[in-house]
């Protein structure tokens, strides 16, 4: 049911930008946003809130990432899930479950399942943001979000690209190339879900979207709120961090 794939958590990690520069055509804008967001290492503390009409649930986690291909997420709260870890290398994903002291490699059938009961799916971690490769881009307008002027860019998937969206529309801030909003549409042009930056701030010496909400269009009252508590960038992280063996040693 909840099949909001592709960006999600990856986007969270990517909602990061550096200093200013100029870019004019939409592909260059996306390239610049991408360049600022990825290709380096980061360590973040993030809280996650699952909001449902009748209840909410909070989780906290720490994440490590290096380059495009490697990331590791460790759940730090609540107590029941504490120590649970997810490792992604390329398109593969493993889950360490401390209560049973086992590592499970997630099979394809699990990839579209909800990630820890949130509005994200496991697949959201695995897919690299393919905005550049898989889509053609068109600048369609400008709008001000969170008091920031932004370009509106429409992305249409290339015929052979393995993406499910009919189109994606993103709002990229003109000043710092932050992605302020992304709306994902199905083939008939109806929106499926929205990623909405709610707060922008400086963390770890960078401008970041520090609070982002995932809003499934068809389920009013449902959302997942991701807030970055702290972030460090360009810290050397040894490759051994991103191994199955290391996952079990995290605390």
């Amino acid at each position, binding site marked *: *049911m909840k*099949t909001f*794939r592709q960006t999600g958590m990856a986007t969270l990690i990517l909602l990061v930008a550096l200093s200013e520069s100029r870019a004019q055509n939409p592909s260059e804008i996306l390239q610049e946003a991408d360049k600022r967001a990825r290709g380096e290492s980061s360590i973040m503390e993030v809280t996650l809130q699952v909001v449902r009409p009748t209840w909410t649930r909070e989780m906290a986690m720490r994440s490590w990432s290096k380059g495009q291909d490697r990331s590791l997420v460790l759940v730090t709260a609540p107590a029941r899930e504490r120590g649970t870890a997810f490792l992604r290398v*390329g*398109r*593969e994903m493993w889950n360490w479950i401390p209560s049973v002291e086992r590592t499970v490699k997630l*099979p*394809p*059938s699990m*990839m*579209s399942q909800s990630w820890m009961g949130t509005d994200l799916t496991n697949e959201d971690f*695995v897919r690299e943001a393919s905005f550049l490769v898989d889509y053609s881009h068109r600048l369609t307008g400008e709008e001000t979000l969170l008091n920031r002027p932004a370009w509106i860019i429409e992305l249409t*998937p290339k*015929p*052979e*690209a*393995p*993406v*499910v*969206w*009919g189109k994606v529309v993103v709002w990229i801030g003109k000043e710092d190339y932050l992605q302020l909003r992304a709306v*994902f*549409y*199905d*083939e008939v042009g109806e929106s*499926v879900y929205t990623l909405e930056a709610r707060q922008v701030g400086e963390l770890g010496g960078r401008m970041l979207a520090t609070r982002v909400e995932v809003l499934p269009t068809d389920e009013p009252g449902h959302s997942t709120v991701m807030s970055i508590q702290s972030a460090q960038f360009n810290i050397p992280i040894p490759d051994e961090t991103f191994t199955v063996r290391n996952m079990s040693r995290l605390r």
Partner: protein
Amino acid sequence: MKLAVIAWRNVWRHPFRSLILVSAVSMGLWAGLFVISFFTGMVDQKLRTGIEAISHIQIHVPGFRDDFNANQIVPDGMILTEELRDNPEVKAVAARLLARGMLATARKSLGVEIRGVSPDEERAATNLSDKVVEGVYLDEAPGRNPALVGEKFARDNGLSLGSRVVLTFQDASGEIASGAFRLAGLYKTGDARIDEQVVFVRRSDLQTLMGLMGEVHQIALVLSLPDQVDTVASVLRIENPDLRVETWREISPELNLFLTTATQSMTITMGIILLGLGFGIVNTMLMAVLERVREIGMLMALGMNRRKIFTMILLETLILVLAGCPVGMGLAAVTVAILGRTGIDLSAWAEGLAGWGLDTIVYPVLSGSFYWQVLIMVAVTAVLSSLYPARKALKLNPAEAIRSK
């Protein structure tokens, strides 16, 4: 001989009574043949869709059907496929790449079985090309990566011709691979387990994505003589000791159970119809004997012995049965010929069945051997059921019998 003449005359002396018996026999024969043709039609239809989905024999490496791992390929599968194609007992061969994976659209993610097939092979082996009810078959599709899904599957999940879907599965190295496909056609086989979860794509497209160029997971065989399935399978088992060779019976215990229960109900129904026929004949003959009490008493008084009277009645019955047989068989042949073309729509008798979108029309068929089998069964029933009335006739006391009425 003389008895036969008397019996013949007796038959004609009571044309109406004879007509009744002839009709009873032909009716029984017709009923029996019709029931068999109906059952055969029903079983054929189910088996055809069932076996078509499975084929007669499937070859995998051991464990494939449980694990569905991408690297469980048949060693030198294409070579084996070509060898099997030359086997005179094999009518058609289909070599397939299979994967369990997900079909994703923007809104849904569905568990599916992906079959990478060769359009030509599949046309010959499973008639897949004829099952396309909307759109076009794999080899007529424009553009790259065409896919076929079941009509019901498409309807249930909001897919239509031209819809773009992303298929995700494990590739040969165990990593997750995916590719975009476009729905070129919708098919309908009538087998829910195919129609609701199998996606057909071209093997040539899938092998690239899976990293399994020129490899296959499954070789399905359709035999020229379906009866030979066990023989052919055991030969193949000896020739390919490292592979698992399975027949449709082994692969689908449900189909086997269906065949069993159908045969069983056919046998029971036949038995009941024959019993009904038997009772009818017994009663009619008993009436006839009652009516003929005077006549038989007379014959006895004239010195005809009981044995001869018994034989006479039996002969009469036999004549009537022989007269009834061609009529019944002819009627059955005509009925089956007509209904075999028009079919019997069961939805007319079962509320709500039409709404299922499944085949509810049964086309009766009858093979020649059944005519003889039923003929013998009906004749035996008729003769057996005339024995009791004949015996009854013999118990008559001649003096009393003449006096009656």
